[in-house]
Every structure is written in C-alpha cells, then in structure tokens.
C-alpha cells in the first residue's frame, strides 16, 4: 500500500513536471527568433527599442546575440533562427537557400582617414599601404572604389578587423591610413584634434545591415513581420526627426542596462550623426539596386549588376504593405 502510494506520488510529480515544461511552450507556440550578428551596442539601441514596440503589439520576439553575421546567417539557413541581421548577399547568390532580405536597417557609414604627418589627400596614398576590416568587406570595397576614382593604387592592403582596433592603431601610429566608423571618427576627433584628416568620399550607398528570413517564414507569419517592419520604420522616423529621442527610448524601455557612462554619453552624438542617413523607407528596390552596384565591385556578388534581379534577393511584400499603410518619407 505504502509502495503504491509512493509510486503514485512519483508519477504525479513526473506528470506535473512534464506539464509545467510543456505549458509555456504551448502559450508561446511561435516566438519570432531574431539573431543579431554582434553584441548589442549603442548603435543598435533604436533597433532594440523597435523590437520592444513590436512586443507591445503582441509579437513574441526572442533575441539572440551571435558572434558574427556569418553565424547569424547560418542560423537562419538551418532554421534555428527566424530572422537574421546582416548583409547576406553572397550567401543569397551562391547558396540556393530560400532566404530573402525584407528590410534595410542601415547603410554603410565609413570614413577614410589618414595621419596628416604623412598624407593629406587621396593622391598621397598612391603606392602606400592602407588597412581595412577584412578581405571582401565593405571597407575594402570603399577604399578600392576611391582608389579607382582617384586613379591611384595602394602598395598593399592589410586586414585589421574591428573599427575600434583600427582607430587604436591609428592613434598609436601603427597604421597611417585606414577607414573607421563613426564612433572611431569621434574618438579620433576628441583624442587628437587636427592630427588626422578625413578624406572626402563620393557617393557610396550600400546596405550595411538588413533583416532577412526564410521565405517560408515570411509568408506564414506575414502579420508578425508587418508589425515588426512597421515598428522599425516608425522608430527610425522618430529618431531621424529627433536624434535625442534615442536616449529617451533607452530610458523608457530600460535598454542596455549594463551600459557604461561612456557608452551612454555616446548615444546622442552617434544618433546625431547617423540620423540623416537612416533609411526611412526600409530600402526596397532602390536600395537593392545600389547594393548590386556596390557589392559586385566589392566581390561579394558575382556577375553584372544590371543582370541581377531584385526578387532573387528581396521579398518586398511586407515592406510594401507597411509603406502603403504609413506612407513613404
């Protein structure tokens, strides 16, 4: 009798455990799993805020931060994430995975910079060494594009991953000519005013980061995707209209709680600089065509830019539906 009671108790506990494990799974049967290709920084603050807004509207967003864009793309390809962040053009072209980009988040914003002790302008870089992020990266493509435009050739291109690493190397004098991001530019201007010159850059419009997902996921979860796109576009427009609103968004949604005072101080200047370049209409066909031009030069895409088809890389359904609702800017 005692034995039976013990057994029954054991089964009851086991059943309860199973049920408690299964119930949350049922309640949120279909979370939207988003894979970032980098850790969350000040630069992704507006995106984090937009995700919070999508959550408010009932989309169960789950965010994972991965080590690199490649890994985020692989997570989407293998179905371990629904939506990835990055610029997976090469992957889309070479791997026939049913992945499409559906929203442009940001454009490449880089600043070629030289140490004025050695160089003053593009022409001075003829036959000199420059440092860029990595082989086949956007930074290399920009430097190569500008070399072609100015009729010069570098003696060597060295690869130093990380804009903050290149900024440090520039300050230490290990690198004399390179290309940095906007936070690197601000550090250089603050640490050594006048020591470095930023070289003029022609028209470079290419996607830095975009959202992409499996076509299957996009068609099955159209409503959620539209909510996400709308949250992002409205947040983008808000930040573009008033760059200081980024700080308010951080406070409202308690984002980046571990940010250091230095990072917090960087929010305003970053968005003041980034706001005019934010894509307010989510990229779409025009952005895709710009990307074809740029990435065929960078080597990420093969073939002739004019021959590439937008529908092979982008799925515009959600974006067009949202733009019809909130209008274009």
């Amino acid at each position, binding site marked *: 009798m005692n034995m039976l009671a013990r057994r029954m108790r054991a089964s009851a506990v086991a059943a309860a455990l199973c049920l408690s494990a299964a119930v949350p799974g049922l309640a949120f049967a279909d979370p939207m799993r988003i894979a970032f290709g980098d850790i969350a920084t000040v630069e992704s603050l507006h995106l984090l805020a937009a995700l919070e807004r999508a959550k408010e509207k009932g989309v169960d967003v789950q965010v994972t931060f991965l080590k690199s864009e490649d890994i985020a793309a692989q997570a989407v*390809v293998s179905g371990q994430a629904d939506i990835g962040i990055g610029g997976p053009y090469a992957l889309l072209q070479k791997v026939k995975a049913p992945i499409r980009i559906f929203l442009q988040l940001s454009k490449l914003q880089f600043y070629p910079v030289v140490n004025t002790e050695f160089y003053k302008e593009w022409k001075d870089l003829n036959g000199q060494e420059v440092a860029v992020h990595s082989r086949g990266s956007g930074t290399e493509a920009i430097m190569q594009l500008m070399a072609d435009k100015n009729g010069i050739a570098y003696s060597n291109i060295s690869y130093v991953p990380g804009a903050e690493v290149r900024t440090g190397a520039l300050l230490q004098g290990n690198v004399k000519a390179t290309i940095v991001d906007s936070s690197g530019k601000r550090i250089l201007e603050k640490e050594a005013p006048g020591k470095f010159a930023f070289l003029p850059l022609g028209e470079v419009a290419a996607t830095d980061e975009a959202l992409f997902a499996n076509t299957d996921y996009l068609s099955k979860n159209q409503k959620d995707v539209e909510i996400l796109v709308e949250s992002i576009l409205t947040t983008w427009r808000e930040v573009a209209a008033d760059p200081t609103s980024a700080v308010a968004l951080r406070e409202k949604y308690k984002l980046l709680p571990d940010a250091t005072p230095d990072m917090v101080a960087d929010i305003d200047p970053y968005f003041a600089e980034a706001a005019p370049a934010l894509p307010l209409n989510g990229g779409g066909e025009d952005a895709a065509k710009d990307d074809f031009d740029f990435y065929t030069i960078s080597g990420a895409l093969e073939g002739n830019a004019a021959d590439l088809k937008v529908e092979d890389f982008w799925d515009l359904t959600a974006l067009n539906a949202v733009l019809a609702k909130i209008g274009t800017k």
Partner: protein
Amino acid sequence: MHMAATPHKVSATGGAGSGSSTIVETLAEFARRRKSFWVVVSLATLFTAWEIAGRVPISFAFPTFLETLAALIEMALDGTLLPAYAITFQPLVIGVAVSAVLGIGLGIAMGLSDKAEWLLAPVFIVLQAAPMAALVPLVTFVYGIGLVAKTLAVIMLALPVIVLNSYKAVRHVNPSLVDMCRSFQGTRLQQISKIIIPDATPVLFAGLRLGIAAGFIGVMLAELLITPTGIGDLITYHRSIANYAHMYAAVASIIAVSTITLAALQYIEVRFLRPEKRRK
C-alpha cells in the same frame, strides 16, 4: 557519388565473370601484403559518405566532396594555397621549434629534479587544462596582432603537452635499468645520457608529435581569432563570401597537412631512431 567508388569495387565488378571466390582471395592476399590498402578503403568510405551527405544535402552550406576537391585544385593552381601556407607556417615552425627545445629541456629537468618539478609541474598542468581558445585573444592585449602574438599562441598550445610528456617519460624510465647503471658504477651524467634519455625517447617522441598536433591547433586558433592570415584568411574570406566549397577545401587541406606532418615524423622516428620497432 559513383565517381568516388572505391578502387577495389571497380575491380570486383570488372572481373565478376571469372569467378568471385578467386577475386576475393586475391583481394584478401593483396590486403594482407599491403597495409595501405585499408587506409585507402577507410578514406574512400569517408569521402563517399561526405559526397552522399553533400548531395542530400544535410545543409545548404555543405558542399559535396567533389566540389570541395575541385575547389582545392583550383586554389592550388591559381596560386592562393601555397603563399597562404608560407604565411601560416611562419608562426607554426617558430612556435613548434621553441616549444620542442624548451619543452623537452624543461620536461627532462622536471623529471630529474624534484625542485624543478615542484616549481614547474603545477604551472604546466594548469596550462594544459586551461581552455586555450579563451586565452588566445588575451595575447593580443599584450603582444598586438603580429607574428609574435601568433607564435605565442602556438607555444601556448604546444609547450605544455611537450613538457608534461617529457616529464612523464623521464619519470617512467625503467628503474631496474637505472639500478643496473648504478651497479656498474655509472656516474649521474652517464645515467642520464646512457640510460634515462634513451629509455625515455619513445615517450619523448610521442610528446613531440602531440605537441606538433597542438601547434597546428594553435596556429589555426591564432589565424581565426587574432587576425586572418594564411589558411585562416582563406577560411574566413571564403566563408564571408559564401564560397563554402573553398572554405571546406582550406579546412580539409590543413587537416591533411597536419596528418601528413605527423605521419612523416612517425616514419622518421621509426626508421632512424628506433630500429627495433621497424616492421621486418
């Protein structure tokens, strides 16, 4: 998949008409005489499985064996592979050489002297247990991103293995041989040079081989975690532009080079240093 059929299968189907029992016998006889037969069969099985897995495909980003082979040949012919190896080998060769000299020296010292053991053994045991992939990025904080940092990464992986194996080798020298040396009134120096080191040689060499294998791991970690150069650059670059066949080819080639290096070292050891182990 059919192209990767093993050579013995081809001959088996080709001669099926003349009676299968003799074919099997000849094959068994051939396999008995040449040990390399089984190596070929093993590799052929692996590559066939790879080809099938690639054709299923198990992932959109997983190339078939033949695609990978084509990519490898392409990289070998267009002159990207050799210069890449020239760059990868610099930190590897320097690092392994330093680790071998320093490691065998320290290991023997630790085996012979209790004081050296007391001082060094805990350090190397901790180093061997430490997850080096987590420590390699820290090297850059002190030594930057150049050759020194990468060589150091190789040493960090190779040195503890070599030291600990050398130390064990000396500690496990047959005590009756040492006693014999003492009976014959051998000096301490003779004991070390004539008994301990020769008797420890097999394990010393095993340590050296493990150290070189660890050195290959170290150089790849350095090239993937510090800055992409050499083979590490080929892997990262082809991954970033989604040339997965080329990426797998670069990975497979470094595995092959590492295996061949170790096999060559074993051959040299058996051929020249330990004649008693040679197969007659």
